[in-house]
């Protein structure tokens, strides 16, 4: 008996309209755990470098982990894994809410969607019974309405993931939403467009299944003991959410301002979590198994940017659609976030696209003729909102921007490639590598492109460290010495958290390495040591890298945009520029990769990945 799992993944072929069960083996789950670990293994098997991300040959994988479906803190998340239509490489996108637990309750550890339906469909899964239903009454509806309609049919205890019209229109910035108007997103890398390319509108899950826990009384006691200190230490997240630290972020030169060009932003104080709490916040949102509740629920009762009570903007949304566009009106930013949620658009990439557009407009590379008459001026919230509509509907320049920065800068031409701020095609999230050297290395080496979450070092580099990962002291954020090992160690821990699967913010509340291992062992009955745990994380990270190497990724792609490498932003980051090459040399050496960033045979042997050697 394997605890924590049902050992079942549903494979649903939308071309043949047939579903079957893939049975997992214990050896597989011990090596790859779940979430993005098993997801990466399946993606490697089902796709390759010839697979077009928007073709029926791509697969869309939804995975839970062994923690999901238990009382483990914030474990009701799920991971989406696919080949990205934005980057054409490995993609994973992590989502909060409750759908992950719903998936486990339906009796499954994961779902693989293959092929393409002839007409729009949605899938329902109830206690392992899978149905493919006609979605003609849902296609064209936004994510909030879709969620409501399916829940009316399946019942209020069901959980729904869906796409909006951005996904239907194959906009490469499209995301997948769950929780309806309380919108939690599998945001990044265009996963919503993959879903749309399969004519798949939504997946509703419902059930009564419960995973078995190996040491249940001890596990329950563990949760009980960890809860009060977690609530106490996370109070600022509960009160102010992810943007409670936004002013600090601006003060140290981390917050994106004017397409990553500017150092300071006076308006930052008007778009913080504290400001939101005094103005438009009505309550906070908890993912199902979370005792913190960092999510924001806002309402704008009157005026031009009126919005019904629902999901408010997170730090990333405020950074990318706000300060990065020189916009300092929290109401407009909230409205922009709501539009993105309804359309099913990634707020990070959409904000990045609009800021890129504003700079191209300022530099005269594009004009009003290209934008359908919009004057894309910095700080104009109304044009931000109008351009979101155009991106979702593929109108005018919105059609080009929705293709992502690599394709858009090629199409727009001029020197726009100089200010297309991405790595491997994935737009920067709202953290500046010029403010912290670990971010430079993390962004350059993350397996899905520019991403802070695959390493998640930014709050630990100059804030608290993680003693049981070997880091007792705060580091100097500009120093490069020791940062290669720092990033490697954090990437292994985060690979595990993305596989277990739970929320990374729980680390702030005390769920560090040893408590996480204890949680895993209590649920599964395994005896993972710290060495086992981190080696498994290393294996998973390397597997994702192998996928990308097969796609043609190598050292030439482990880099940063010219603006970030060459142009000091001033403000709190001063004249600091990342010394990426030095860190990268050391990083490859620590990882056991060759000069091109390819894992050596010895490394693959050590990590039990020899089956992935390409002959």
């Amino acid at each position, binding site marked *: 008996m394997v605890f924590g799992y049902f050992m079942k993944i549903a494979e649903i072929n939308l071309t043949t309209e047939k579903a079957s069960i893939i049975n997992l083996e214990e050896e597989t789950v011990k090596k790859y755990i779940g979430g993005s670990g098993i997801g990466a293994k399946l993606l490697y098997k089902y796709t390759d470098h010839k697979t077009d991300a928007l073709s029926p040959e791509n697969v869309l994988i939804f995975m839970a982990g062994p923690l999901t479906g238990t009382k483990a803190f914030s474990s009701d998340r799920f991971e989406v894994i696919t080949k990205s239509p934005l980057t054409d490489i490995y993609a994973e996108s992590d989502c909060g809410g409750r759908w992950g637990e719903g998936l486990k309750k339906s009796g499954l550890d994961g779902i693989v969607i293959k092929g393409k339906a002839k007409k729009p469909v949605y899938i329902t899964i109830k206690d392992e019974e899978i149905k493919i239903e006609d979605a003609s009454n849902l296609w064209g509806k936004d994510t909030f309405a879709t969620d409501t309609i399916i829940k009316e049919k399946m019942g209020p205890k069901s959980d729904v993931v869906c796409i909006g019209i951005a996904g239907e229109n194959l906009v490469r910035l499209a995301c997948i939403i769950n929780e309806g108007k309380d919108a939690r997103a599998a945001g990044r890398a265009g996963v919503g467009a993959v879903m749309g390319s399969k004519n798949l509108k939504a997946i509703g899950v419902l059930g009564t299944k419960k995973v078995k826990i190996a040491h249940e009384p001890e596990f329950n006691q563990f949760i009980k003991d960890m809860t009060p200190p977690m609530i106490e230490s996370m109070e600022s997240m509960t009160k102010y959410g992810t943007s409670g630290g936004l002013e600090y972020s601006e003060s140290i030169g981390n917050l994106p301002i004017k397409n990553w060009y500017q150092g300071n932003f006076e308006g930052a104080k008007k778009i913080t979590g504290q400001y939101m709490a005094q103005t438009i916040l009505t309550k906070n949102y908890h993912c199902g198994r979370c005792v913190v509740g960092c999510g924001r629920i806002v309402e704008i009762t009157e005026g031009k940017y009126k919005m019904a009570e629902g999901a408010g903007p997170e730090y990333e949304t405020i950074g990318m659609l706000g300060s990065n566009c020189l916009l300092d009106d929290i109401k407009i930013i909230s409205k922009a976030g709501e539009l993105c949620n309804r359309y099913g658009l990634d707020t990070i990439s959409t904000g990045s696209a609009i800021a890129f557009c504003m700079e191209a407009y300022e530099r005269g590379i594009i004009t009003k003729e290209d934008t359908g008459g919009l004057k894309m001026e910095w700080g104009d919230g109304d044009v931000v909102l109008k351009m979101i509509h155009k991106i979702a509907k593929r109108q005018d320049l919105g059609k080009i921007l929705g293709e992502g920065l690599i394709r858009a800068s090629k199409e727009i031409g001029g020197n726009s490639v100089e200010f297309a701020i991405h790595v491997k095609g994935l737009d920067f999230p709202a953290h500046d590598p010029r403010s912290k050297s670990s971010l430079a290395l993390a962004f350059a080496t993350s397996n899905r492109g520019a991403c802070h979450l695959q390493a*998640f070092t930014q709050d630990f580099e100059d804030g608290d460290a993680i003693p049981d990962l070997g880091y007792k002291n705060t580091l100097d954020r500009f120093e490069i010495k020791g940062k290669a090992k720092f990033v490697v160690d954090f990437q292994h821990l985060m690979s595990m958290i993305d596989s277990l699967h739970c929320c990374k913010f729980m680390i702030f509340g005390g769920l560090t390495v040893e408590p996480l291992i204890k949680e895993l062992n209590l649920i599964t009955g395994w005896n993972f040591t710290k060495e086992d745990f981190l080696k498994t994380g290393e294996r998973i990270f390397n597997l994702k890298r192998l996928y990308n190497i097969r796609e043609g990724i190598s050292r030439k792609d482990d880099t940063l945009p010219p603006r970030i490498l060459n142009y000091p932003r001033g403000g709190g980051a001063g004249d600091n520029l990342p010394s990426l090459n030095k860190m990268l040399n050391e990083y490859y050496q620590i990882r056991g990769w060759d000069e091109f960033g390819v894992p050596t045979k010895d490394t693959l042997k050590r990590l039990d990945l020899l089956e992935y050697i390409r002959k």
Partner: protein
Amino acid sequence: MSKFVINLKFYGGLYRYINNYSKERGLYLELNTRKKIIDILIKLGVPRNKIVLIMAGNKPVSIDYFVKGNDVIKVFPPIGGG
């Protein structure tokens, strides 16, 4: 005015700025006069931009809050942003 004691608790990495800090007990300070909390924190060496939330008991207070006897003050750093 007679002396009084306050208890300060620091979260995240903020405790690193405080000498003789105990994670279990926090820091006890004996004061002669009621002072603004921000002045106390700056004097202890906590960087101003790393103070995101100050609570006195269960209530958030401003940086200009005047502490009083038996206050339990909690100070939180910036976290989040993912």
